[in-house]
């Protein structure tokens, strides 16, 4: 199983921990978990390269998840890195906007580790 370096973007530190725990409970082997509390911080992390996946909240201060997603288009190190958006909102419009902007999937809170695995595993390819 491939070991993963992931970036979790959420303005809530508790939510970042919950997402990381769900990834581990889903059976994913994480070598490194980077965290950012908004899209701007996340862009800095992405530019360093080496990520296998990004999971990002939509509603955040400073730079929200949709703006972050759109900004990734201009970042070389983000090419080929799947992004999954996480949202509490029931808004289909925002999900559609995220998918149109390049997100490979989305998770709606609340979620179970099984749902995390269903969303994440197909995007990783090769033995997850």
């Amino acid at each position, binding site marked *: 199983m491939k070991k993963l370096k992931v970036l979790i973007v959420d303005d809530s530190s*508790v939510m970042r921990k*919950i997402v990381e725990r769900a990834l581990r409970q889903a059976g994913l082997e994480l070598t490194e978990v980077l965290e950012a509390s908004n899209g701007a911080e996340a862009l800095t992390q992405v530019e360093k390269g080496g990520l296998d996946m990004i999971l990002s909240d939509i509603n*955040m201060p400073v730079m929200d998840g949709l703006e972050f997603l759109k900004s990734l288009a201009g970042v070389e190190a983000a090419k080929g890195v799947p992004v999954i958006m996480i949202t509490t909102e029931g*808004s289909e419009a925002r999900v559609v906007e995220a998918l149109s902007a390049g997100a490979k999937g989305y998770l709606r809170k609340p979620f179970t580790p099984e749902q995390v695995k269903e969303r994440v595993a197909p995007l990783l390819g090769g033995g997850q």
Partner: protein
Amino acid sequence: MSSFTKAASPAAVAFDPGWKTILECAAIEVFEMMASVRPELNSASTGEPTGEVTAMVGLAGALCGMTTLRCTKTTAARFAALMLGEAAASDPSSSGDALGELCNMVAGNFKAKISTLADHCMLSVPTVITGADYSVEASEPTEGILVPLLFEGQPLWVSLVIHT
């Protein structure tokens, strides 16, 4: 979290007493999915909510009001441990933060189940109050739903207060 201004003057949605069942369902679903526990409905509860921790999430747009989740410090700490693991939950601030996230998800899950609200109602960031002696009251005309629950023998309350 984004500001309320993103909900561009949607038509107001009228309060529906039938939302109580939806709120019950939304709350229990959140606890089941995020903490792997299923609180019971506390049909014997008759009093006002009590407990030292209250998480609040505001609603604006087609529905204006507030969702709250209130329980004891012990129960809040228990939820934090279930959601984050014992080690992470040892951080003193994690109990309130975890309860805030649960409240946020209850509010989001509730509105996602009502098609007229899902795209037309925004949530605020969670606010958490701790203390021994306080009540949460709205200053404007309101309708309300109170869902009393029981978890590991301890009461907790989910409420939805709507400005009418």
